[in-house]
């Protein structure tokens, strides 16, 4: 099956055997594709001796993967500079290196189609009136997308009559929000925002102002990680409960994904876990020896995706920890592995006679 055919069969439709066979075929082809076009990638394959053995593997677990941090160190791309239509950067705090991901037209198209197949499965094929829980400032510079801006633009395609509900000072525009709801009285409403923004600038504002906002017909999609909320002891269950209490919203889906594999997002299904679509997969590895861990065991997350053509990001070792919960037997009928993310790999304690200045500055977050 080609990718386009695959997109046609539904993102959660294939059982393990069929899915793995497809992934093996596509990923082997992608490895050869990038080996031929991306010199740094080829150098790595050569150093590990993979090219001498022929670039063909029988199982996804055996295939080479790149540590995601490499995208911070090198401009890895498999296309000529002239074909780059977008450069995505990961969100990093000031002073930190960020990943740069180069997209051409075709990869961008594939990502959009993949994302749309996933979204359709969750919210249907119709564009819904959409509230974006952010300020329009975040997408103003369209040449260099931040992860936040890219996420918003990507998701905007699934809505219409968009309203950015925060002003330039990150204040909730309650009156505009009320008008918007009056103007769309009978339809489901799509809401999108970053997890922390939703909490800080939407939930907390609604709670503080006790504005009468009814979003029982809303579907909230959010992403971005829980770190800042964990600091406030808010987990997914508490998040859902609180939002429901403040505006009646019940359909809330978190998703996991990263700028290095945009399009391949992992939506939270009814099981409460992230669901892998047909064109991507998750493997959990033991950092002690990088062996594959069985379902239930916690380890480092590797993500594979058959979408990236313009950069060698089809198999990436992330810096996140997670565990696979099950496969093909999710209660909502969606097939594929489902998993949870358990935070970042903790920073290594650095000891040694290296630079005191740099490290202390880093420790202070300067």
């Amino acid at each position, binding site marked *: 099956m080609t990718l386009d055919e695959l997109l046609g069969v539904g993102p959660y439709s294939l059982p393990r055997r069929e899915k793995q066979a497809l992934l093996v075929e596509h990923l082997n082809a992608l490895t050869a594709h990038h080996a031929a076009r991306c010199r*740094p990638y080829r*150098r*790595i394959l*050569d*150093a*590990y*001796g993979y090219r001498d053995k022929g670039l063909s593997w029988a199982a996804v677990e055996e295939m080479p993967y*790149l*540590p995601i*941090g*490499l995208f911070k*160190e*090198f401009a890895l791309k498999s296309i000529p500079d002239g074909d780059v239509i977008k450069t995505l950067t990961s969100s990093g705090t000031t002073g930190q290196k960020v990943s740069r991901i180069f997209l051409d037209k075709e990869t961008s198209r594939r990502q959009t189609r993949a994302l749309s197949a996933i979204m359709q499965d969750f919210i249907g094929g119709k564009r819904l009136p959409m509230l974006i829980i952010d300020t329009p400032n975040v997408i103003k510079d369209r040449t260099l997308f931040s992860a936040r801006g890219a996420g918003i633009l990507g998701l905007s395609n699934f809505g219409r009559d968009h309203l950015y509900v925060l002003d330039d000072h990150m204040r909730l525009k309650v009156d505009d929000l009320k008008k918007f709801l009056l103007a769309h009285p009978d339809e489901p409403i799509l809401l999108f925002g970053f997890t922390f923004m939703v909490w800080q600038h939407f939930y907390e504002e609604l709670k503080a102002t006790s504005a009468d906002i009814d979003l029982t017909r809303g579907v909230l999609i959010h992403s971005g990680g829980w770190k800042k909320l964990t600091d406030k002891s808010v987990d997914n269950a508490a998040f859902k409960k609180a939002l429901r209490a403040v505006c009646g919203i019940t359909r809330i889906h978190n998703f996991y994904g990263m700028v290095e594999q945009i399009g391949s997002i992992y939506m939270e299904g009814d099981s409460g876990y992230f669901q892998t679509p047909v064109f991507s997969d998750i493997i959990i590895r033991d*950092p*002690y*020896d*990088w062996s594959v861990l069985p379902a239930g065991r916690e380890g*480092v997350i590797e993500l594979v995706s058959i979408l990236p053509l313009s950069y060698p990001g089809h198999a990436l*070792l992330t*810096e996140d*920890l997670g565990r696979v919960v099950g496969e093909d037997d999710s209660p909502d009928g969606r097939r594929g592995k489902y998993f949870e993310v358990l935070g970042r*790999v*903790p*920073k*290594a*304690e*650095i*000891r*040694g*006679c*290296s*630079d*005191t*200045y*740099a*490290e*202390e*500055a880093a*420790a*202070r977050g300067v």
Partner: protein
Amino acid sequence: MEYKIIAPKGTDIDTLASRRVLPPFAEPVLAFVDAVSARILKDPRFKQYPELMAMAFWMRRGNIVKLKADFESKRGSRAWLGRGVVFHIAPANVDTIFVYSWFLSMLVGNINIVRVSSQADEQLDILLGVINEIARESTHTEVRDRFAIVRYEHNDEITGYFSSLCHTRVIWGGDETIRKIRAVALGPSATELVFADKFSFALVGARGFLDHDNKDRLIEQFYNDSYWFNQKACSSPRMVVWVGEESTVNDARGVFWSLLETLAEKKRLGFAPALAINKLIAECSVAIGAKDLVTIERHRTSLVNRVILQSAADINRELQCGGGLFYELRIDSLDRLADIVRDKDQTIVTCGINRADLADFVRTTRPAGVSRIVPFGEALTFSAVWDGYDLLREFCREVDITVR
């Protein structure tokens, strides 16, 4: 200006700086050093820190007496005195360095101000607690009056204040720190010792290694050299240079790394998932950046990572993720080592090569770098001669008396 004097309690910097130096190897100083050593060796809290135990061993009276004898034989009848106030800026992460630096300076009589890292560190706190306790005892007043351990976040004004007071400034801790601190003025006649970023490696005679009758012991020593500070001390080996023919080297390699990995699995010192990831990034970075093709040897575990280089030009001395990532190079004979050594190189730990050949190599090739060549197991052993400085001598000035 905010700095905190963390030892001894109640010290005043201006009074301290106005005191006179003690004579070299004065008894009150020897007694203090000995007391600190004895406390560390006895206190069970220190057992978990092998590098502190090694330090306490180094400062035993027996060893200090040797230092003294060596110092006196070099001095002869000349008049050597401590320089006055020495300001030490210690590295953030090797807690023991500040003690070595301070004690050596104190042994020749100086008054010392030591800036330790502002990062919280349990090991450092225990050590400072012990130093405070001992300094409080009435027998140690002369020492107590002549040192201050201070803590502050890097700040040019405070560094400038201590720099203006001192006669010698000592900067440990890397190129970037040195560049920043050097921008802060020293008094016109003050001297300065700096310890820049270094690179250290192992030099192994393949035949000599294979013929050695206690390879387990050798590997354990190499393991300690490499893994004690998670391979992040400046003298931790980050490369193995093999000397010998290709087939001999290949045999030796097989034995060497398999013994090392087995030992590393048993000890599992400092294993961290983040380090395992950083090593993958580092080895891929080397593969991308190298001029010649490199070979990444895959290991059973994440405890050992190896990148075999074809050319010395591909040694990336800046990349130091630590945790057991080794470059490897092979040379046919020892004289080829001259192509490898750079001025950044500090310690060579070696086995399977005899002393005469090494001395001959140093004499004939006169390498720009390398300040120590030591046997396996001694990479981290501190020496009063460090990075080419004879520290006891550097901490002294000479009064030239020519009156007959």
